[in-house]
């Protein structure tokens, strides 16, 4: 078991710097997810930890040990690859036993440990099969068993579920989470799927353009995102421009909202993130004070209904509401939008800082 510390990591491909000045601490035994859009550097960072990508600067530690110059084969990591990387010419059992053989363990111990993990992953009945006869989900289980059986200090998973169908993905998510807790192994998990990240992680690091944008629990990241990028990347949100004046937020020039918690926000222009469920729609007849808007369209999705509206400023916003039996709103209707003020986030004008964190 290890904690992982990364200090001032730097990665270059030729003249292009992909990652620079990246710092990270991963606690012992936690499931830590690197989440970000494709090309953000998350897989690159994972492969630097694994030793498959060279490190151009900074220090990587497993506990107190610097691993920068350690061969991948000596780092004692278990890795699960996006395409599983099951050895096609070896049977399931031999795949799982491969790492143990490299460690020159006694034969009966290899057999025992292999059997234990085959059973844990519920693939013992396929032990003698060649991988080509297995389904994607079964191959995934082989990959996981193979990575875990060597009792690695760290488990690295590179988009392990991206090649599975939706149903299997949910199932494997649960399985990975269960086994990770059972074994208690420090795990670094890479994904671009935010729902997957939210459901599986203890801690999420949101990455963009080679930089870590926000590190926090799934809850922190959703509720108080560090900047506008994180707010828009995690879940859906409407970003509006507004003004702060002495703790009062002005939106679309006319609508005013205030909260004592906002008193510390400096005066001046700001960006405001309002998630679709943080708006409340009122018919004009309610007499509520808020943002005037016109309903353009709505989509009924069963549990929720999505409303697409246009503000008087011309901005389009999306509002999600739990569906009701008989919706009285129709395209073209004028409405008033109010906010669930405690939930919304207010950012600096350039979107780089959340004033409410």
């Amino acid at each position: 078991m290890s904690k992982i510390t990364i200090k001032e990591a730097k990665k270059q491909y030729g003249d292009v710097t992909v990652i620079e000045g990246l710092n990270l601490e991963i606690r012992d035994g936690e499931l830590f997810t690197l989440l970000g859009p494709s090309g953000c550097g998350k897989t690159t960072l994972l492969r630097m930890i694994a030793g498959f990508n060279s490190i151009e600067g900074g220090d990587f530690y497993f506990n107190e040990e610097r691993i920068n110059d350690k061969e991948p084969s000596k780092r004692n990591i278990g890795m699960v690859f996006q395409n599983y990387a099951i050895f096609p010419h070896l049977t399931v059992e031999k795949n799982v036993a491969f790492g143990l053989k490299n460690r020159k363990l006694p034969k009966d111990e290899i057999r025992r440990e292999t059997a234990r993990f085959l059973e844990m992953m519920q693939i013992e009945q396929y032990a003698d099969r060649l991988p080509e006869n297995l389904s994607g989900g079964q191959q995934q289980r082989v990959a996981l068993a193979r990575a875990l059986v060597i009792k690695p200090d760290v488990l690295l998973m590179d988009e392990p579920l991206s090649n599975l169908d939706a149903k299997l993905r949910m199932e494997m998510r649960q399985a990975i989470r269960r086994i990770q807790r059972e074994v208690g192994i420090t795990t670094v998990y890479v994904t671009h799927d935010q729902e997957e990240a939210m459901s599986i992680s203890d801690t999420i690091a949101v990455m963009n353009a080679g930089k870590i944008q926000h590190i926090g629990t799934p809850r922190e990241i959703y509720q108080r995102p560090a900047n506008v990028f994180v707010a828009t990347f995690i879940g859906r949100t409407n970003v509006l421009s507004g003004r702060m004046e002495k703790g009062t937020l002005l939106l679309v020039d006319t609508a005013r909202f205030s909260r004592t918690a906002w008193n510390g926000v400096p005066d001046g222009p700001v960006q405001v993130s309002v998630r679709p469920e943080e708006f409340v729609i009122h018919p004009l007849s309610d007499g509520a004070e808020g943002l005037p808007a016109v309903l353009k369209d709505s989509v009924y999705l069963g549990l929720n209904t999505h409303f697409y509206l246009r503000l008087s400023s011309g901005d389009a916003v999306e509002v999600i509401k739990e569906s009701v039996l008989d919706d009285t709103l129709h395209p073209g209707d004028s409405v008033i939008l109010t906010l669930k003020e405690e939930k919304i986030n207010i950012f600096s004008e350039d979107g780089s800082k959340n004033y409410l964190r």
Partner: protein
Amino acid sequence: MRQNHRRFRLDVWGWTTITILLLYGLFLLYPLGLLLKMAFSDGMHFTLSHFVRFFSRPYYSITLINSFKVSFMAALLSVLVGVTLGYFMSMYQIAGSRILRMCIVMATMSAPFVGAYAWIMLLGRSGVITRFLSGLFGITMPNIYGFNGILLVFTTQLFPLVFLYVQGAMSKMDASLLEAAENMGCTGVKRFFTVVLPLIAPTVLAGALLVFVRAVSDFGTPMLIGEGYRTFTVILYNEFVGEVSQNKGFASAISILAILITMVVYFSQNLAASKSAVSMNVMRRIEKKKLRGLSAFLVHLLIYAVVFISILPQLYVVYTSFLKTSGQIYVKGYSMQSYANMFSRLGRSIQNTLIIPALSLLVVVLLAVLIAYVAVRRRNALSGAVDMISMIPYVIPGTVVGIAMISAFNRKPLVLTGGMLIMVVALVVRRLPYTIRSSVAILQQIPLYVEEAALSLGSSKLKAFFEITLPMMAPGVFAGAILSWVTLISELSTAILLYTGRTQTLTVAIYTQIIRGNYGIASAMATVLTVMTFISLLLFNRISKDGDITL
């Protein structure tokens, strides 16, 4: 794929790269350098006199033009025949297509000079067909000797290369491309020229280049059937081993010129191919259609006629091996006499034809796999150099390789001439480029992460290669090795220069018997070679899953 190993590292693979580089230095660059030096030297001083002599006398200079002309035409005709057959056999259901394919492969897998010899027996001055036609109808056959004959032999023997390339390319073409064209009203011949041909053009060009390279470096065919039509390989041989006059500096100069010409063709092909390169993604292979009526008849007729003509020389050689002979002349009746006579002349040829190619093949496969690995997986300046150097022999005619080897290794510090080793070295150097290319292609199909998985599980680099990557490459490499084997056992141009009594191979023995006029014995020996080739190909068909042949 991420390019991850740009820097040179002195690990296991670093040492492998250096070792291979040193081997190439000793066995390729040093002999070639020596050749270059001899070409520009009169023994003491720098001189251009060899080149001046070559270009000032048409007797010599014409040979380069001859070689180029006949090889170019051979490539052109091979493209015409190969593309036509390849297209038809990929698009339509042809009766007996497996056997046809096997025959086409057989046609290209025999030594070209055996084809030349057979065509002389068939269409030569006293050939069977010639006599038959003139006796019956008074028809005089066109002259088989010279340009026509060489072209006939080259085309029938080399069009299969284009054919196999085209079939390979057609199998990578998605059926929906053809259907899309058809949907937009483009069918038949028009579709072939506007859609199919542009898509397979790079492959066709690669096939054409291969035909050209094989044709231009072939020695036995023009020697036997060329007569007055001299190609440079012929005068090269004569100048180097000639009984009348030996002029090694002059031979070296011709070698340099020959390499230059092949290089020019090689690079212009590369340029043309890269300009027309397309990438295709096959989801659904082309489904072969059934032809009906007249078109079915005509297509079958064409294919069977071409295949028959190209396999005819070998069939005839096998046939004549069972004819009764009296001295050098065939007489009426059949017998095994030629085979009986053969044994006394064989010496160690059959053993040599097994041992030398087998040894070469072992080294070729080992080196090719290693070179492919460093070239694909450890890209850096040094492995790039290995990759580039390894392709040099591709443009060097076999005769030139032979000459370079003799020049380099018949003197101290390293004397190899006369032994088996030098023949192995020469064959390895010649065959490597092909095997490296196919190994590179195989390796590129194997994702890097499989190997990384092995490393992450604690394998050493070498162990990951031998336990994971190599076994995954094995089926492809092994299938390729069988084809290499077939080419190696039918090799003549290098062996003819390097052999001694002890190291004579079957092809050399056949050639010698043909030259001496012992046709019956030559036929018997050629039949033995054909049988060896046939068995190898059967083995290949067994092993290779889809019977796909890449050369």
